[in-house]
């Protein structure tokens, strides 16, 4: 018990220590706290409102909710927080602690915090919503705590088992990209519901029928049952919790004595020099080559590009789906231009991903022309990927909407918007630069304290691109399709002048840009 208390206090101390001095972090914590309280209150209310539904439906909904919590606990800590200090067993390996006590302590530490508390409160809500009679309440209390423990030990088991992989570079790279898939996974039910596939009630009943036999399903059912079957289910659940706990202890013991294998690494292929065949030798070719490699190798690029495509795809899918086909040009132009905007936003902090290594460009370029070449190289590399991608997206959306005639004007307009986007993005890159942390998480794309700058940068870019694109997009949207012929020259012109202006501004404040993108993360 004293071990549990000690670790719980350690966790609290770490949380408090993180807040010291930094206003942005304090505000962030207050925000998290408010969010957790709101989620807990709302969750508790919704769960207790299950009492108003008919019992069978209420049980099904509770089974779904419990399963969602369980899955959430299994994957969200991996994606959003990585490994924090209390959770990485390697940091504790030098202390004279037996594995069993370490497990108790780490369990206590992971039970301490705002989100665990919120989960517990929401789960207790199910007690109010489902339990009937004294037996139901008694079995229910057991079920609530077993469900809570189940969430925690599962989460611990997964982070501990993967901690070796998570500490290696490849593991973290893979995880960064996996985060996108997880977000997509959570969007899936939404999409299915939007498309009107099947009857929601039937869907819930059939899903719950399957999930009923999963551990969280057992917990939810036990609360509703409240009799001998419920008791038996609790027993099974308890055995499961102990089993997962035991596996976790094994994984912990293993993780503590296993070496970090992250320094073993493979070689990369030598470049084939395709870029050099088309570009004259010099700084421009160097920047394009390097940027193309970065887009391929840096998980932050992969995440950004992939997210843009997914968001565009989801929106295109929803819009064209609702109109029921034959919607014509506007239905294609909208998603295509949105895609161009999203892809251009990837460039709105061009120096951010270079981050602390940007000095290498700074010491090489002594004048505005150097910076102009740098920006041109970045734009060229991005366009080499974005333009074919936009064309592909436009074709897909056009065919999906049943208007193949829209392909050409829509693709041209999207390319024009992308050009405008690059011009605007080069301005925000030099005026509102910020550090992109090595490890992305779901909540922010900027270093601590620069969240505002990141938001302002993206927002300014979005407004700028939208504003400058309107004269182009509006006529096409209203059916004057020939205007799209002017899209490409217009986009190129905006890109050219934006880049020139950005180089002038950027050269004058290069040390400041360098400082802004070199913040510790």
């Amino acid at each position, binding site marked *: 018990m004293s071990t549990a208390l000690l670790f719980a206090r350690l966790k609290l101390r770490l949380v408090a220590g993180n807040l010291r001095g930094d206003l942005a972090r304090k505000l962030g914590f207050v925000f998290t706290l408010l969010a957790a309280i709101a989620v807990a209150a709302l969750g508790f209310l919704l769960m207790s409102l299950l009492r108003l539904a008919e019992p069978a439906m209420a049980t099904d909904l509770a089974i779904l909710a419990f399963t969602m919590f369980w899955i959430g606990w299994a994957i969200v800590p991996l994606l959003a927080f990585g490994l924090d200090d209390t959770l990485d067993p390697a940091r504790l390996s030098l202390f004279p602690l037996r594995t069993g006590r370490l497990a108790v302590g780490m369990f206590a530490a992971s039970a301490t915090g705002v989100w665990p508390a919120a989960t517990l409160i929401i789960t207790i809500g199910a007690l109010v919503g489902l339990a009937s009679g004294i037996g139901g309440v008694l079995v229910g209390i057991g079920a609530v705590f077993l469900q809570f423990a189940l969430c925690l030990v599962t989460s611990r088991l997964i982070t501990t088992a993967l901690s070796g992989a998570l500490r290696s570079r490849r593991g973290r790279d893979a995880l960064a990209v996996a985060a996108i898939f997880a977000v997509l996974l959570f969007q899936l039910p939404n999409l299915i519901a939007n498309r009107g596939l099947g009857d929601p009630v039937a869907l819930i009943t059939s899903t719950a029928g399957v999930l009923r036999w999963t551990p969280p399903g057992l917990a939810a059912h036990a609360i509703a049952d409240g009799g001998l079957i419920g008791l038996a289910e609790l027993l099974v659940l308890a055995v499961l919790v102990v089993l997962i706990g035991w596996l976790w202890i094994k994984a912990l013991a293993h993780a503590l004595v296993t070496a970090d294998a992250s320094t073993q690494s493979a070689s990369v292929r030598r470049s084939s020099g395709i870029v050099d065949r088309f570009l004259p030798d010099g*700084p421009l070719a160097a920047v394009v080559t390097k940027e193309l490699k970065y887009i391929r190798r840096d998980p932050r690029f992969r995440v950004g590009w992939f997210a843009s495509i997914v968001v565009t795809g989801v929106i295109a899918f929803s819009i064209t789906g609702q109109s029921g086909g034959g919607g014509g040009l506007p239905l294609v132009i909208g998603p295509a231009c949105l895609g161009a905007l999203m892809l251009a936003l990837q460039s709105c902090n061009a120096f951010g991903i270079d981050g602390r290594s940007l000095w290498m460009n700074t010491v090489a370029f002594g004048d505005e022309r150097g910076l102009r070449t740098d920006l041109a190289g970045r734009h060229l590399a991005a366009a080499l990927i974005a333009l074919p991608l936009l064309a592909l997206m436009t074709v897909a959306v056009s065919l999906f909407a049943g208007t193949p005639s829209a392909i050409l004007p829509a693709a041209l307009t999207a390319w024009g918007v992308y050009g405008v986007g690059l011009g605007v993005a080069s301005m925000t890159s030099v005026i509102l630069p910020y550090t992109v942390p090595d490890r992305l998480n779901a909540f922010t794309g900027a270093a601590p304290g620069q969240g505002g700058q990141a938001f302002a940068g993206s927002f300014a870019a979005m407004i700028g691109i939208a504003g400058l694109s309107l004269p182009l997009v509006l006529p096409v949207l209203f059916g004057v399709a020939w205007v799209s012929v002017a899209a490409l020259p217009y986009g190129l012109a905006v890109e050219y002048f934006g880049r020139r202006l950005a180089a002038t501004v950027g050269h004058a404040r290069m040390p400041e840009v360098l400082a802004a993108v070199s913040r510790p993360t």
Partner: protein
Amino acid sequence: MTEAVHTQGLFKRYGQQIAVAGVDLVVPAGSFAGLVGPNGAGKTTTLSMITGLLRPDGGRAVIDGLDVWRDPVQVKARVGVLPEGLRLFERLSGRELLHYNGRLRAIPMAEVEQRTEELLGVMDLREAADKLVVDYSTGMRKKIGLAAALLHNPSVLFLDEPFEGVDPVSANTLTDVLQRFTASGSTVIFSSHVMDLVERLCDWVSVMSAGHIVAQGPLAQVRGDRTLNQAFLDLVGGPKRAGDAGLTWLGANGAAAEESPSAGGER
């Protein structure tokens, strides 16, 4: 004496704190110069301002007779830099990093490739040349960083803590290359707090403390008849004797403490 580097009243403040309070650094051309000082003395800030990476709040810096902040094109062609913290393009391989660096300075590709292979050979990095820099060890990073700084054949080389965390074998490679470089008449300025190394390598020493240059000149003159380490401690104000109070339990004589019941806590 021609001066490779000359600063006048270089000044930088961060909010309330003055990091560099009017530095007049002088380094003669062709010297192997050491910039020494305790942590927080302002060495990194000074080097960043001289190499054009950080804007000074006052004063000026001159390299080879050219003002760093008024004539950046000329100056940047002449200096090579290895900044603190090993900040490199992590997702390029060692070879790609050198290629990028050379071509960025408009050196023809054929020339860049030839220099790259030679530098990789000298630095003993051939085997790791196709691995990503993110997977390099500290010693390998320092070596690839130095190779990148040398690739365009600068006349003045600025190195911030080049030997920190480097194993003896890699350190030996680094010093060999640097000594060959200065023997040809080029200038090296590096910051360090390893006095033995500075004493062994340098012929010119500048000592910084609390944002000022407190001593500067040929090694023999700064050192006098002391070791450089002693001279340094005298200049920056060595540690105050802690006295014999406290720490009585530390070491073999304090073995009695092992039997005391207070050690260990609950078991």
